[in-house]
């Protein structure tokens, strides 16, 4: 078989347009999906937006509730959220711009994957430490609206309930955060990883 000849025949039969495609610029702008890189960047910004809203809320509660226990809890949360916001801003600024497809895409995909994966891991680890603080702060806040916090904290039953709430809520919140992270970032990072592996495997094969 003459491969070149058959390829020519294949091109004419399978790939040659039968009719003019009559493309218009409006057709070109109608893109069906966004690059996973762009989606990741957008979702990181949304994540930052939520963090900013929570931070503002914590600041309001910090001012409105002067009890030292509440202030300690919300003070910790404010500091951690502030650090997370600054860190995320730094990370996003240092991500390379999304390349046009005429250039090299592998290094950019690797940068996005590695940096965002590291950022998510960091968030998950830090969050594990603040969930108990957050749960305790929430509980203190709830108690304060109904009774005197100092008096209530003298009661062993309240301390038990508080302890149980922290023990139950911490893993639950961790699991929920991981699930949300998977929805917002995980599947796109996996998609990029698959393509990175493919490109790297290609380089090795070649």
């Amino acid at each position: 078989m003459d491969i070149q000849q058959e390829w020519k025949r294949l091109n004419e039969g399978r790939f040659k347009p039968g009719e003019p495609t009559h493309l218009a610029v409006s057709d070109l702008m109608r893109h069906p999906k966004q690059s996973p890189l762009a989606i990741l960047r957008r979702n990181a910004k949304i994540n930052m937006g939520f963090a900013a809203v929570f931070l503002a809320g914590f600041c309001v509660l910090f001012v409105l509730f002067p009890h030292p226990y509440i202030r300690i809890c919300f003070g910790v949360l404010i500091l951690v959220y502030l650090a997370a916001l600054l860190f995320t801003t730094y990370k996003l600024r240092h991500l390379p711009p999304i390349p046009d497809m005429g250039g090299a895409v592998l290094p950019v995909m690797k940068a996005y994957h590695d940096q965002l994966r590291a950022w998510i891991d960091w968030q998950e680890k830090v969050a594990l430490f603040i969930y108990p603080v957050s749960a305790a702060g929430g509980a203190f806040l709830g108690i304060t609206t109904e009774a005197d916090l100092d008096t209530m904290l003298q009661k062993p039953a309240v301390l038990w309930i508080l302890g149980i709430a922290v023990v139950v809520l911490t893993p639950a919140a961790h699991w929920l955060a991981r699930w949300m992270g998977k929805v917002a970032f995980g599947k796109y990072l996996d998609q990029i990883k698959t393509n990175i592996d493919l490109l790297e495997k290609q380089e090795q094969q070649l």
Partner: protein
Amino acid sequence: MFTDEHVFLQQIEANIGIVRKVVHLYVEHPDDRRDLQQEILYQAWKAFPAFQGLSKFSTWLYRVSLNTVLTFRKRERRHATDPLESVGQDHPAPERHDSDNAERLYDAIRQLKEAERALIMLHLDGFGNDEIADITGLSANNVAVKLHRIKNDLTKRLNG
């Protein structure tokens, strides 16, 4: 007066076969193919201002198409039940007088490793080793060695 859009659309019209070829050799499902073809056109349009005419438009479009496929491609959807069904979605199926040999060649290329498909496709489309090296980022020597191996492999598959 010819605008950038006009030039671009003319070039795309003339080279749309490249986009179709890449999409068909890398993606199976008709919906994925349609999405990906549209995505390639969009990415090409976006990248067009950076195209300075240093290479041929077809060379550049190949690079954009391959990069887009490798960046945007998602896990494959379920394959179409009939391979010919997937072909007929966005362009006519090959006519019967297209020899079975051409179909066998298409199947054989699709069975190659992903990296090899791009190399043989470019080679059969008449690109020189230097141009293939430019598109794939390999050295011309590496391209030559690899192409020799792929052609042998392809011949064995077709004759075996």
